[in-house]
């Protein structure tokens, strides 16, 4: 098996293929993470701020999340009028998933910001938008980051499914491997997917630490 692997990886064209698909995989999983987070923040805020809205927002996001990913990959081109193989389909589909997945963590994270701190900010003379960006959002990072980590892993694994409809990513190594009953690309694909998920997770943890210096201050209260 190791012979197979080394033979597979020694070919320049295979190396190029793996690298291209890895970069494609990163792009296809992380771009939706960023856009999805950006969409989930206002929606989560809506659910946090207006209890009446929260029922609708959570209902829709739960429903969306139960739609099978493959079905979504197939339906989106019809809705958007894109080519079936367009990688935009994967970006849109995963953005929808990420948004649906993160709405609740965003809402929970905002709920967890102490009420009296927000009230104090208002009393200091903050206007709502600035208060949200400079007080509520930073304070919601500890709770929110857990949700973002789940979403990143979820995205990285879902991108592989996109390969079934030929949109690229490390999943391509699986499909091509199966087609020719050759395990080397499959193993390379699995290992790289795992490593990618791990590295992204480590980066997210580092980011959270950088954004929450006060949590490491070792408080007395």
């Amino acid at each position, binding site marked *: 098996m190791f012979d197979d692997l080394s033979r597979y990886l020694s070919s320049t064209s295979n190396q190029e293929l793996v690298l291209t698909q890895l970069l494609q995989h990163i792009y296809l999983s992380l771009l939706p993470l960023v856009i999805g987070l950006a969409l989930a923040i206002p929606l989560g805020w809506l659910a946090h701020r207006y209890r009446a809205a929260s029922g609708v927002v959570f209902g829709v996001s739960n429903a969306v999340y139960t739609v099978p990913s493959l079905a979504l990959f197939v339906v989106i081109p019809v809705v958007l009028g894109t080519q079936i193989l367009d990688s935009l389909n994967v970006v849109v589909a995963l953005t929808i998933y990420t948004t649906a997945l993160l709405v609740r963590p965003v809402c929970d994270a905002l709920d967890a910001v102490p009420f009296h701190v927000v009230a104090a900010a208002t009393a*200091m003379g903050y206007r709502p938008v600035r208060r949200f960006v400079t007080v509520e959002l930073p304070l919601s990072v500890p709770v929110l980051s857990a949700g973002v980590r789940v979403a990143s892993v979820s995205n990285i694994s879902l991108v592989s499914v996109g390969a079934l409809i030929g949109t690229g990513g490390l999943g391509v190594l699986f499909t091509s491997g199966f087609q020719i009953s050759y395990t080397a690309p499959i193993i390379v694909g699995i290992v790289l997917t795992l490593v990618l998920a791990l590295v992204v997770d480590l980066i997210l943890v580092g980011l959270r630490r950088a954004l929450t210096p006060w949590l490491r*201050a070792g408080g007395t209260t």
Partner: protein
Amino acid sequence: MIEFQAVTKRFDDGTTAVDNLDMVVEAGTITVFVGPSGCGKTTSLRMVNRMIEPTSGTVLVDGEDIRKSNPALLRRRIGYVIQQAGLFPHRTVLDNVATVPLLSGWTRRKARARAAELLETVGLDAAMGKRYPSQLSGGQQQRVGVARALAADPPVLLMDEPFSAVDPVVREGLQDELLRLQADLDKTIVFVTHDIDEAVRIGEKVAVFRKGGVLAQYAAPAELLSNPADDFVSSFVGKDRGYRGLSFLQADGIQLGGVSTMGLHGEHLSGERPSTVGGPDWTLVLDDDGRPRGWLPPGVVIQGEPAEEDLRPGGSLYTEGTALRGALDAALSSPSGLGVVVDDAGRYTGVVTAQQVIDLIEERRKDAA
């Protein structure tokens, strides 16, 4: 100056939190809102900075209807301190204090310099500026809360039970600190508490609220204690209001007694005894400026100068012209049972007994009846 004109607040669920409030909070005074839980103190306070809008009526700050001001801009001119301090946990102490100056468009450098200055004003070490709020004690957090409220030098300060989350000893320190600050700053302060002791201790005027948001009495503390407007106020100010009332009775009319005294060098100053032999009574030892240093117990024989270990530390001193409560405290805390009375410069002028204070109270009570 803050003026409430026929202010009523009814919440959506029908609760009347404040009922037709008419009152004037004088500029440059500490006015305390006191009353049982749920009587509308916080609601009244928050109508001043538009955190809550009145259902009807008008609130004026310095003669201007606050509805004419933009809420955010109005709030930057009104300091606000709450019970849990409400500090921003994600910002350093220094940046917490710099909040309002930064909002008002100061440069970061100038705002931080101002913040550092304020930390000192409220008695905190400048080095604490680098810490996060979770690294401070409760009392220190409250000080930071006060510093933050003062940062942009607002003429009005609203304080909602600012010291109620800290233990009684720390609280008393914070109250003293506030009184000291106010002597310099001369702000218009509205202070909410449900502790009547705190109210009469720091308030120049006290507004007592009853359930349903009705103002029951608005008066100076002495007036409130000696002349409660009705049964509610009298039961709210409590059974021990006699003792609290001492804070406002003057001691004029008390005949100061004398006691034998001696100087630090053993010289005989007064009284019927030679300086080297302890007499049958307590002897008060004074320093060269005539300030009390301690008591020499009866029967103690000393040669020459009284040594430090011969002296019993005195109790609290009573300064002439201050409230009678201090005279009683001095008498009760003195080892000789004689309260030491001093003048403004701290020089001994005489002694007073607890009995004299009590007699005076009885006398005043008869006069009042």
